[in-house]
């Protein structure tokens, strides 16, 4: 690793000193294209984040792609209901690696204010792995920008080999997550135990 001051000195001379991991991750994190996926109220704040006042395009989210095949980031904005959950998991399966998920708002994290609901899924991380959670109801556009920057920092810190490498460089990692089926009273299965182990409450 090159010392920061030395890097800046060399940079003034027109020499770029970096590692392949830094360069690779810099390219990946500076062009995250989210998918056009809004479920409920948080979607309006997400749209407001892309508008002129809190412009998200300057962070790399240049366009919102409607098709999952062309998107890198799935921002779950709004309540995920049990009727909608299979479609969300299917969309997530259709996204090519590398893909990230931001759970925006209280409803996507844990069901939110509608937790006591027969049709509300108590958090999307029951079925798909989530990278960043943003609390709030709805979170301010600045909070979404902050989460986006956190995601960028997380991508920067991902090593290319070894333990914490991203899924697409790991041959054994699970790529496709099982889609739940609507049952008679509830979704079957109620959660994906591989993704969401039941937390033990320590009292």
């Amino acid at each position: 690793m090159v010392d920061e001051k030395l890097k800046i000195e060399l940079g003034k001379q027109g020499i770029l000193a970096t590692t392949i991991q830094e360069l690779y991750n810099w390219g990946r994190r500076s062009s995250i294209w989210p998918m056009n996926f809004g479920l409920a109220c948080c979607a309006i704040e997400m749209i407001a984040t892309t508008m002129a006042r809190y412009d998200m395009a300057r962070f790399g989210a240049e366009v919102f792609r409607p098709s999952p095949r062309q998107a890198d980031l799935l921002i779950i904005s709004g309540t995920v209901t049990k009727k909608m959950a299979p479609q969300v998991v299917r969309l997530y399966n259709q996204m090519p690696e590398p893909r990230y998920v931001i759970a925006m708002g209280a409803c996507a994290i844990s069901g939110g204010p509608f937790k006591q609901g027969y049709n509300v899924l108590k958090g999307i991380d029951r079925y798909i792995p989530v990278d960043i959670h943003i609390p709030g109801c709805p979170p301010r556009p600045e909070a979404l920008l902050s989460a986006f920057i956190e995601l960028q920092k997380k991508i920067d810190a991902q090593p290319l080999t070894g333990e914490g490498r991203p899924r697409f460089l790991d041959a054994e990692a699970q790529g496709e997550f099982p889609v739940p089926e609507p049952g008679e009273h509830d979704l079957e299965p109620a959660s994906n135990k591989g993704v969401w182990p039941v937390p033990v409450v320590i009292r």
Partner: protein
Amino acid sequence: MIKIVSKLGFGRKKKPEGWNRPPVIESGEEGELLEVAMGPHHPSTHGVFRMDLALDGERVIRLKPEFGYLHRNHEKLGEGQSYLASMPYTDRLDYICSLTNNWAYALAVEKLAGQEVPERAEYLRVILAEMTRIQNHAGSIGFLMQDMGCSGTPLMYAFREREKLLDLFEKLTGSRMMCNYMRFGGCRVDATPEWLDEARKVVAGLPEFVDEFEALLRSNEILMARTQGVGILKQDLAVNAGITGPLLRASGVNYDIRKVDHYGIYDRFDFKVPLGDHGDVYDRFMVRMLEIRESLKILEQALKDIPAGPVMDSKAKIRGFRPKPGEAYGRIESPKGELGFYLISDGGPNPYRYRVRPPSLINLTVLEDMALGQNVADVVLILGSVDIVLGEVDR
């Protein structure tokens, strides 16, 4: 070849005997229909909403809407908690216009309990409701243009003004979108004179925006070619199907609940109700544009005349609020249509039955009628002109 076999109630002069069914359009060759599920994830379905289309080439033969992808059992929650605890949940019904939802619920509960509202609170309610109407209609026009392919530029103009109004909401109520501001018997917090001055400044700057917005869009060739004559809704069908809001007025029916029910203090303000002639998408777009101007008129008058005084009725009970047994139905003219709340009280702190009459759901009754025979691309426009919000459709 498509041959229209029977037209019941669609374009006839005599009122039909049966209910107003959509016309049956038979396709020439059997088994040639393409079935497409549009949604729930689609760039232009305004939320998680699915339409099962049966197409003959590009023409729509059958359209069945499917909802429930955002059903968050708001009504069941309302039964399990007190009247006041349901107020923040009403914000999340029609999540773009949270203050009008609050007002509708407060109005229904005030009818149920027989509560009075002080004058300054009524003025504040009108001011906030009209601001909500302006930002909703501007956003709706922006979303309609985005469906048409404008890639967000009119939406950016609309959201620029919306941000100014949201700043005002945040200064007064504490939140940009989910305001939770109205209470039974008035409003939660009084507006300071500084807030009123700032509101006057913002409202003074809005007519320029509306002029610019309208001038850029009104005679746009593409808009006119794509929306005139598309998705026509006839008056009889509209009234029979329970349509309310700009959708009804664009078909030429003069029914604005602000003028009919005389709720609040709308009688004191001088404003007109814009009506459309043809009932197509262009008329709905123009009705919304003109309604923004009428709302500005109301705002100017209200901000000038607002009196001093309390904002909460002194006799209003906040703790231990138990209205007498009975029921009440209260409704207002929300930007989407008639938003009504039906409450049954059994004397306890929680309502026995808490029902929301959703304008967006009932406005979708005629989606099939408007879209039959049109192209698939027009279906997107028709849906955009109905202006639905899924939080309200599914509750």
